[in-house]
Each structure stands twice: as structure tokens, then as C-alpha cells.
């Protein structure tokens, strides 16, 4: 009898499993040794011990055991599953795949081994190989088993890969034809009715081949019964009719559908699509392979914009539905009213498209010409449904599509409509709530329209006070809500804050004044959080405000309260929290966030195979394709690439700040090295979580907050906050943001990879160091120049430009030095001169940078208020300087120590600048010292500053937060000040370290 089937064996293994569960490595190792003494060489025990090794950090030992057991080609199910578990932990799934390949070669009739091998191929996206294994399984198991569908999925996945450019012996068309034939044959063999998954997969295969009519017939026939939600089936039929070119039938079909489902928004949109823009519908007739377009589409044949009959008919249909008694329900009426708004937007974009031929609905693109119809429909909807909490969200995309000329008029008409609505009903809570919501909706829409326009900050303060007052009055209405629920009027405080910030940004040139507005705004939203602890609008606003005020710990706490985790890191963390951390030099917090962000992707790479196999085993065929596509989406994520790049640069900076030698001697495993950027990145960023005063930035992450401070919007025509619309990605502003973000990240990535390559090849000898530097700079393609100012400083000014110029000079320096080393003495004088020039360039930019930082830190110094709190812009600039200079100094210092040998006194005298390297170094030291002193000075004066600030503010606009008795503004100001002090201390420490390197070099 096999000893592994005995109780004695199980008894030996039990303590090992228990130790693993308890995380007790010592006990586990002892149990493993005991078991191996009894059962020498037992594979399960060795693998369990290897898992202990892996979990206790001994990765090399674990891998050694893993490889050794794999070479024995185990076939026992328990051993294989333990080995698979270990491989997954070690992220070496190819090992288990290789074992299974050998095992199935030895035992080709084992269904279990073949299923394991199929899973191993599926995990690695080896679609052709998995298809071959599925075919073997099908031959072994017969047609009753689901393996035929595994083959079909494998064929579809191969076709997808081929469409995306993967090499394939068969064309996508051949692969799809094969899949099509297999599905038909399989269903002919079986009496079973079509399942939902089978129907949808078959429809997908038919559509991918352009067989839309056949797909329609299938859904209308035997396949349709699997779609149990009537509206879902109807919608699919409608889409297939459109795809098949049967537009009249589709129009009639949708007309009938919306009669039954008048509150289904997608059906209403489809009805308008097919009724108003049949030309665009023709586009959908092209073959689409599960989301991938295969061929160029037909040219859209837009309806004649002068033909108003189709609009008239569609409007008539909607009006008829509005009057129908069966549609009297409020939700249905709301739906139909909004359909009328949608219709007007399309009417206006149709007129636009007559000149541009690009009219797309609800994308946030602003029409140029006046659209009275759209204004009237919006106003009507507001009057009728403004009391619903969703009204502003419902209207958002339409408001953002309003032409400039109509905005003020619409706003005024809404205000008039609101004038009869009181803000509060003493006796009737429900009525009060409706009134409150209507006021909130108006103010929200007003701000999205870029209004009101303030002529003075005082006006903005009065506006903010009025909103805060409305909020305070509404408090009895939220008395019954739990503290963790969102309040009915929380957004009012965000809007009040927004008014102050907008006015401050446009009307106040001094950074100190704008800091004061931000502090006011922060106090407003913090006051709101006294009772509403986790209201997302308040927390998000406070997070951005804290980041702008150079208070990264406060920002992190705000985001932390929202429990942003897992997939939300991909959509939120990278653009909401990360810039505040890397921009203020909070290295540890930034590294921790970046680790969390990157874990989302690495964990998915590890676990995706399991859920993919669940989909195969559950017969969820459409999910198989969807999961593969999802994996691709995550792997191409812009946030992922951003996090990898910033983590690498953070590592480099941390090592560089300790000096060039430390940078050179850092072990490779201590630093993450980013690979190539994906050819096309996917932007999953949810920009709608950003406030209307915080546009998304495309600058490098550490400079994004600086960019906000340096850029100001231009009036009189304000930019509408395009980013808050759910469909913002399809707007032209969204495309432009993605394009610049890609260039910016490409530049950062190139910088990271160049610095990494440079670091790994550094020698201790400074001349070798310099030569290697130059070789590497020169070996990189200039097309991917990380210092090209045009790439990521397009939208930035002053400070960010200076930072970039410093990097450019660094590059010039090492290039000059390199060519000097390579070319020898013949051109020595020329190179020395060029080198000296570059050195002066760097020095002069560096001095300018330090001056700029000092200026920002000293700017507008009101009496008694010379505090850190009012110098957030300067603090962020100093943090960026402190962070970046570490890299420059690490790169350039060895060159400076060579400089004495290269630039002879005679040459120096010929040089127009006439300064030696030593004197330049002294100048740089002095400038850096000045920055350090200034930060220190502000730090010393930070005590009691919040009281002074608050006293002045309290007299000025006390109403902004005194409504909340429990709120202690001084407490917030103290936290803010403490946070800023930490940032300041870090800046001073970093500058002092750099000063040490500079002086050390001078010696």
C-alpha cells in the first residue's frame, strides 16, 4: 500500500499544515524535518517545507526545492497541487507548466493531467497550445463534456490575439469559421436548449464574421429564450437589426420597446440613435470581435441636418409617451424628460456636424452656436425634477455641452425658477428636503457652467457664506442620518470652498493670499466633517486641498477615511493622492502607496489564472474572453506604468541623496527597474472624482501640484470642468490630456531607465564613472529624450521649466565629459570649454531655481503672518528642488571633481564666464544654503501662527465655519502646521545633505 494513503502519513503532515496556517516557521521546519526523517525525499513534505521557506523570506531556498521536485516530474495530484501553489507564490508558473507537459507526454490519457496542463497554458495566455490540449480532452471524454467549448474559446482568443498582431498560422477569419462550425455541430448533436453563455458566445462569433442577420435570427429563434430579462433581449435584437442594416425595422422595434420600457435609458438612447442618425448606425455593421474592431468601417452617411422631420417625429414620440397614463410614474417621466434634453443636444450637435461632420451626443463637446432648444429643455427638466438628488448628475453631461453664449441666460432663468422655492419649510421635512435639493442642484449647475463670475474676493466670500448658511439651515434635515451616511447638502460646502478657490486663483496674484483661500476652503469642508465622517465629496475636496497646502499626511488621512483600495488604486490613487506625496518629498508614504498600487497588478497576474479557470469550469464562456481582455487592460494601465516609473525614480532619489557613492553601490535588488512602456496605454483614471477647481494634470507626478499653483485660468470665458463628466475620456480635452500624459510618462520612463542603467554600471573610480555616464546618455535614442522640455512642460511655467532645464544641463555635462574622454587630448581644449559652458549653464539655472524658491517662500509677507501656512507654493517648490537636486548632484559631482584637471587656469581666463568649478560650487552651496535658511526661518516662526491667522479670518468671514459649534478650527490649523513642518524639516535635511556633498566635493 502506498504509504501516502496511510493515516500515519497524514499524522506526520498535520503539524506541518498547522504550522503553515499559524505562520510558525520554526515549528514548521521541525515538523518537516521529522516527516522527512520518516519519509525521506517525500515530495509533498519537501514542497511544504519550500512554502515555509518562501513565506519566511528564503526565496532562493524555496526555488531550489521547487526546481528539484519539478525535475522529478511528479504526477501525484496532491504533489502537483502543492507544487502549483508554490510556483504561484514564487511567481514561476512556467515550472508547473513544464512539469505537466512532461507528465502528459508520459501519460497522454490522463484527463486530470491534461486539465491541469490546459489551466497552465490558459494562465500564460498560450491559446494555441490550450486549444490542442482541449482537443485531446474532447477526444478522451466525448462530446457530452464541455471541452468543445474550451476549444471554441481557445479559437476565439487566438483570433483576438491575431487581430491585435500576434503571429498565427491561421487568419482570424479561418479561426472564427472553425469556431462557428464547432458550435453549430455541437448544438446539433445535443438536444439541450441554448444557454445564455452559449447564445452570447455564438452571437459574438457570428458578429465577428459580419453575419449580423444570422445572429439576429438566432436570437429571435432558439437562442433568445436564454435571455430572460425582456429588455436585455429586446436591446440585443435591436442592436443586431442595426448591425444588419435593417434600420427601418430597428426603428420600429425600438419604438415598440420604449413603449413597454419607457424608463430604460439605454433603449431611449438607441431609439434616438436609429431615428435621428441612421448614418452613424451603419458604423456598427462592421465585424467586431468581442470588443476589437477588425476592419475599417464604412463611411458614415449622416442624415441631412436640414431634415428636421426625423427630430420632429422623435420629439412627437417622446411627447406621446410622456402623456401615456401607464408612464405616469415619476421615474419614467424623469427618463422621458431627459430624453427630450438629449434630443435637443443632438439637434444642436447635428447643426454643428453639418460643418464639422463629427456630431456625437453627450460627450461634453461644447457647441459654438446658441441652442435655445437645449436651454429650454434643461430648464424644463430642472423645474420638474430639480428636487431629486440625482438631478444635477443627470444633467451634468448636457450642462457641459452648453454653448458659451447660452450659459448666463440659462443660469438666470434657473435662478428665476428657483426664486419661488423657499429654502426651508418649518413643518414639512419632505418638502424642505425637496427645496434644499433644488437649491443645491441649481448651485451645482451654476458652477459647472463656470459661474458666478466674481469681481472681487469679497464677493466670493459673500457667495461662500450664503452657501454655508444654506447648509447650516438644512442641518435639522440630516439629524436622523447616521454619521457615516452622506448628508443631503454636503456638496454645498464643497461648492462654497470652490467659489473661494476659484476667486482666489483668478483675482489674487500672491501665493500667500491664495494659500489663505485654500485654508478657508479647507476649514469649511473640515467643519462639515465634524458630523459627516466619511462623506466622499467632503473627503475628496479636503484631500486635494491638503495636498495643495503641502500637508501630505492630512491628505493621506482624508483618502484613508474613504478606504480607497484594490481596483480603486488604479482609478483614483494615481491622480488624487500620489502627486501630493511625491510632490512634497514624503518618500516613505509615497513608497508605501506605490507598493499598494502595484500590488493590484501583481496580485492579478498571480490570481487571474484561477478565476479564468473558474469561468471555463462554470461554462461562463463570454467571461473567459472578458477576463483575458481585462488582464490586457490592467497590463496596459497608465496608472500601473506611472507607479512603476515613480517607484524607480523614488528609489534612485533616495540612494542619490546619500551621495554618488551610495547610488553606485546600491544593490540591484534594492531598486525596481521599469520595463518598456506598453505600446498603447489604457487610461482608467476616474477624473470625475476631482473637484471642478482641480483639473487633471499631465505634468510629471512630482510637479503636478506646482503646475496648479503656476497656472491660472483665463477669463472671461472660463473652461468648463470637462473632466467631471463620466464620458470625459471621449472629449477632445480628454484626448489631449491622455496624449500629453503619455509623452510625459514616456520621458519619465526614459529618465528612470537611463539612470538605472547608469547606476548599475557605475564604478568607484570617478573618471570611469564619468565615462560610463556619457556612454549611456549617448547610447539612448534622442527621440526619447527625457529632458525635452516640450514634452512634459508644455503646460507648465517658471519653476517646472527651471527644474527641467537643470536636468537638460546635467545631460549636456555628462555628454561633454564623455566625448572628451573618448576623443582623447586632440580636442581636449574644445571639449573643456564646452564642458565648462555646460557647467556654468547648470550652475546658473540652479541659482535661478534657488532664487525662485526663495522668492516664493518670501512672497507677500503680511505683518505678523510670515509663516509656513501661507507659503504652500514655496514649500512645494522647495520640496521639488530638494528631491530633484539629489539626483543632479549625484550625477554631476564626480564630474565636478574632474573639472579641476580639465579646465586649466589659462582656459578659464579665456572663458567669458571666467569662474572655476570650485567657485561655481561655492555659489551653488550659498544659494542652497539660502533656501535652507529661509525654510528654517519660516519653520522657527511657525509657532502661534495659526492663532494669528484665525483671528484675522474670524473677524473677516466667521460665518464660514462658526455654524458648527463642535468644530475647532485651531485644531485643524495646528495639524496643518505640523504636517507642513514635517515637510519643511525634510526639505532642510535633504538640502543639508546635498550641501555636505557639495562641500565635500570642494575639498
Amino acid at each position: 500500500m502506498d504509504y501516502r494513503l496511510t493515516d500515519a502519513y497524514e499524522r506526520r503532515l498535520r503539524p506541518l499544515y498547522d504550522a503553515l496556517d499559524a505562520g510558525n516557521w520554526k515549528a514548521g521546519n521541525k515538523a518537516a524535518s521529522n516527516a522527512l526523517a520518516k519519509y525521506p525525499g517525500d515530495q509533498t513534505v519537501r514542497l511544504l517545507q519550500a512554502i515555509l521557506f518562501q513565506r519566511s523570506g528564503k526565496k532562493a531556498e524555496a526555488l531550489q526545492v521547487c526546481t528539484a521536485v519539478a525535475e522529478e516530474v511528479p504526477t501525484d495530484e496532491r504533489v502537483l497541487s502543492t507544487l502549483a501553489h508554490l510556483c504561484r507564490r514564487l511567481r514561476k508558473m512556467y515550472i508547473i507548466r513544464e512539469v505537466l507537459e512532461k507528465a502528459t507526454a508520459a501519460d497522454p490519457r490522463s484527463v486530470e493531467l491534461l486539465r491541469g496542463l490546459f489551466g497552465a497554458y490558459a494562465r500564460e495566455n498560450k491559446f494555441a497550445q490550450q486549444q490542442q490540449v482541449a482537443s485531446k480532452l474532447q477526444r478522451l471524454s466525448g462530446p457530452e463534456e464541455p471541452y468543445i467549448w474550451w476549444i471554441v474559446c481557445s479559437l476565439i482568443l487566438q483570433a483576438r490575439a491575431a487581430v491585435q498582431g500576434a503571429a498565427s498560422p491561421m487568419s482570424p477569419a479561418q479561426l472564427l469559421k472553425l469556431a462557428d462550425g464547432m458550435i453549430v455541430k455541437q448544438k446539433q448533436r445535443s438536444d439541450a436548449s441554448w444557454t445564455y453563455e452559449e447564445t452570447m458566445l455564438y452571437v459574438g462569433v457570428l458578429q465577428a464574421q459580419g453575419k449580423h442577420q444570422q445572429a439576429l435570427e438566432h436570437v429571435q429563434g432558439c437562442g433568445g429564450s436564454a435571455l430572460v430579462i425582456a429588455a436585455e433581449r429586446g436591446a440585443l435584437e435591436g442592436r443586431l437589426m442595426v448591425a444588419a442594416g435593417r434600420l427601418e425595422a430597428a426603428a420600429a422595434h425600438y419604438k415598440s420597446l420604449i413603449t413597454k420600457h419607457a424608463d430604460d435609458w439605454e433603449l431611449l438612447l438607441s431609439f434616438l440613435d436609429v431615428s435621428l442618425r441612421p448614418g452613424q448606425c451603419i458604423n456598427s455593421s462592421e465585424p467586431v470581435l468581442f470588443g476589437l474592431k477588425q476592419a475599417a468601417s464604412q463611411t458614415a452617411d449622416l442624415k441631412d441636418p436640414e431634415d428636421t422631420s426625423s427630430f420632429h417625429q422623435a420629439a412627437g414620440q417622446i411627447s406621446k409617451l410622456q402623456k401615456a397614463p401607464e408612464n405616469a410614474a415619476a421615474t419614467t417621466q424623469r427618463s422621458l424628460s431627459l430624453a427630450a434634453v438629449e434630443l435637443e443636444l443632438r439637434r444642436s450637435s447635428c447643426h454643428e456636424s453639418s460643418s464639422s461632420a463629427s456630431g456625437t451626443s453627450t460627450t461634453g463637446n461644447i457647441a459654438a452656436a446658441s441652442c435655445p432648444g437645449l436651454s429650454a429643455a434643461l430648464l424644463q427638466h430642472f423645474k420638474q425634477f430639480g428636487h431629486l438628488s440625482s438631478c444635477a448628475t443627470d444633467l451634468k453631461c448636457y450642462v457641459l455641452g452648453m454653448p458659451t453664449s447660452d450659459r448666463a441666460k440659462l443660469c438666470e432663468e434657473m435662478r428665476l425658477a428657483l426664486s419661488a422655492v423657499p429654502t426651508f419649510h418649518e413643518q414639512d421635512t419632505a418638502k424642505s428636503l425637496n427645496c434644499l435639493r433644488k437649491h443645491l442642484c441649481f448651485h451645482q449647475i451654476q458652477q459647472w457652467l463656470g459661474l458666478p463670475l466674481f469681481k472681487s474676493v469679497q464677493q466670493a466670500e459673500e457667495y461662500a457664506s450664503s452657501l454655508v448658511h444654506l447648509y447650516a439651515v438644512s442641518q435639522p434635515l440630516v439629524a436622523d442620518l447616521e454619521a457615516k451616511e452622506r448628508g443631503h447638502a454636503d456638496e454645498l460646502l464643497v461648492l462654497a470652498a470652490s467659489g473661494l478657490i476659484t476667486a482666489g486663483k483668478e483675482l489674487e496674484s500672491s501665493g500667500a493670499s491664495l494659500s489663505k483661500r485654500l485654508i478657508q476652503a479647507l476649514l469649511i469642508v473640515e467643519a462639515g466633517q465634524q458630523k459627516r465622517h466619511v462623506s466622499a465629496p467632503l473627503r475628496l475636496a479636503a484631500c486635494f486641498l491638503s495636498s495643495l497646502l503641502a500637508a501630505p499626511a492630512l491628505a493621506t488621512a482624508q483618502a484613508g477615511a474613504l478606504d480607497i483600495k484594490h481596483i480603486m488604486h488604479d482609478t483614483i490613487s494615481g491622480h488624487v493622492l500620489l502627486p501630493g506625496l511625491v510632490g512634497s518629498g514624503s518618500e516613505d508614504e509615497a513608497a508605501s502607496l506605490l507598493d499598494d498600487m502595484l500590488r493590484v497588478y501583481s496580485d492579478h497576474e498571480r490570481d487571474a489564472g484561477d478565476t479564468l479557470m473558474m469561468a471555463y469550469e462554470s461554462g461562463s464562456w463570454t467571461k473567459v474572453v472578458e477576463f483575458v481582455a481585462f488582464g490586457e487592460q490592467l497590463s496596459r494601465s497608465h496608472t500601473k506604468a506611472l507607479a512603476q516609473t515613480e517607484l524607480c525614480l523614488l528609489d534612485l532619489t533616495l540612494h542619490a541623496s546619500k551621495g554618488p557613492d551610495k547610488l553606485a553601490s546600491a544593490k540591484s535588488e534594492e531598486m525596481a527597474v521599469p520595463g518598456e512602456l506598453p505600446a498603447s496605454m489604457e487610461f482608467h483614471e476616474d477624473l470625475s472624482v476631482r473637484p471642478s477647481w482641480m483639473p487633471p494634470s499631465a505634468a510629471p507626478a512630482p510637479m503636478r501640484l506646482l503646475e496648479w499653483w503656476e497656472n491660472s485660468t483665463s477669463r472671461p470665458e472660463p473652461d468648463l470642468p470637462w473632466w467631471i463628466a463620466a464620458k470625459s475620456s471621449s472629449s477632445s480635452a480628454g484626448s489631449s490630456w491622455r496624449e500629453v500624459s503619455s509623452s510625459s510618462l514616456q520621458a519619465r520612463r526614459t529618465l528612470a531607465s537611463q539612470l538605472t542603467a547608469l547606476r548599475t554600471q557605475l564604478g568607484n573610480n570617478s573618471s570611469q564613472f564619468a565615462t560610463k555616464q556619457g556612454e549611456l546618455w549617448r547610447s539612448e535614442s534622442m527621440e526619447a529624450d527625457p529632458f525635452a522640455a516640450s514634452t512634459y512642460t508644455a503646460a507648465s511655467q517658471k519653476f517646472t521649466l527651471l527644474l527641467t532645464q537643470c536636468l537638460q544641463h546635467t545631460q549636456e555635462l555628462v555628454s561633454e565629459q564623455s566625448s572628451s574622454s573618448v576623443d582623447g587630448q586632440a580636442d581636449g581644449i574644445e571639449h573643456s570649454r564646452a564642458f565648462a559652458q555646460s557647467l556654468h549653464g547648470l550652475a546658473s539655472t540652479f541659482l535661478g531655481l534657488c532664487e525662485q524658491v526663495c522668492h516664493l517662500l518670501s512672497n507677500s509677507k503680511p505683518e505678523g503672518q510670515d509663516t509656513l501656512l501661507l507659503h504652500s507654493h514655496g514649500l512645494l517648490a522647495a520640496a521639488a528642488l530638494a528631491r530633484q537636486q539629489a539626483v543632479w548632484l549625484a550625477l554631476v559631482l564626480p564630474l565636478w571633481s574632474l573639472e579641476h584637471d580639465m579646465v586649466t587656469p589659462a582656459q578659464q581666463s579665456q572663458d567669458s564666464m571666467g569662474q572655476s568649478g570650485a567657485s561655481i560650487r561655492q555659489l551653488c552651496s550659498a544659494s542652497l544654503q539660502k533656501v535652507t535658511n529661509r525654510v528654517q526661518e519660516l519653520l522657527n516662526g511657525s509657532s502661534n501662527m495659526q492663532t494669528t491667522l484665525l483671528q484675522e479670518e474670524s473677524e473677516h468671514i466667521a460665518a464660514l465655519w462658526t455654524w458648527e459649534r463642535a468644530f475647532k478650527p485651531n485644531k485643524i490649523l495646528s495639524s496643518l502646521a505640523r504636517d507642513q513642518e514635517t515637510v519643511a524639516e525634510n526639505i532642510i535635511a535633504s538640502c543639508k545633505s546635498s550641501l555636505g556633498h557639495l562641500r565635500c566635493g570642494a575639498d
Partner: protein
Amino acid sequence: MTSIRRFTCSDLFTFNAVNLDYFTETYNLPFYLQYLAKWPEYCLLASGPGPESMGYIFGKAEGEGEGWHGHVTAVTVAPQFRRQRLADKLMGILEDLTEKMHNGYFVDLFVRKSNNAAINMYKRLGYIVYRTVLGYYSGDEDAYDMRKAMPRDTRKRSVIPLKRPIRPEELEHD
């Protein structure tokens, strides 16, 4: 004003308006993908103009014999779309699927004992408190196991309340 369709992986990128809410848990990716792989019919998203994610429901079918039932794992609506009976609609579809597709005996769910708003909503939809699960939620909060019988349970045996509270380890399913 709503369109309800099957939840897809891509919806994870756009569900923040719903999930940025204290009462809505954001799970790790294997959690969502497991539900999508095994019970795709029970994972539904409600979307509105924009398109904005308004809310979603995740559920599963489980149990044996007369214990075969539909389970509501998560049902949530974004704060601005609440009080519009959207959760009713999502629950209605899940019940419909339990009855017509899976032929289950009942639908059940767990809810915090302190969440009166949700408990009242479920009661309005015909659910009863079947039993109390002690310390079910982290922080030791008790849960109510609420149930609604489906037509297959003709004698309504699944909804005879248990008097004795149970511990989480006594639950039949995870």
C-alpha cells in the same frame, strides 16, 4: 431612468460613484471575478445618463435539497440615486432569476442589525428575519439572516424563523 445589464469587468473602472460610500465594501479582484465567473447572471449593474453607475447587485445560487436558494451578497446604490426604488428593482430581478432560472426555494441575505434603513427596505420587499447571526461582522456586530420564500417553497418552510441565534461557524455556507 435606468438600464440594467450584466456587470462586466470594465465596470470595476467606473463604479467609484457607488463605492465611495462607507456602507459599500470594495473587495479584492478575485472576489468580483469569482462571482462573474460562477454566477454572471446574478451580477447586475444599473446605469443611467452619462453613463453613470447608479448601483449594482452581486449574488449567487447555493445550497442543497430544500436549502437550494439565491443569496444576495451585495446590493448597493450610489448616494445620489437613492430613494428611487432602484434597489427594489435589482432585488426583483435577482428574485426572478432565483425562481425562473435556478428554481430556488428562497432568497436570503445578511444585514447589519443596526442598519434599520436596509432592514425596513427588505421587510417592505417581503423578507423576514429568519435568524440572528452573532458577531457576524467585524467589530462583533450581529447580523440578521433575512429570507423571502420563492414559489417553489409552497409550504413556506424556509421562512419559519429560528428562535435561537447562531454563531458564524454554524452557518451552512461561507
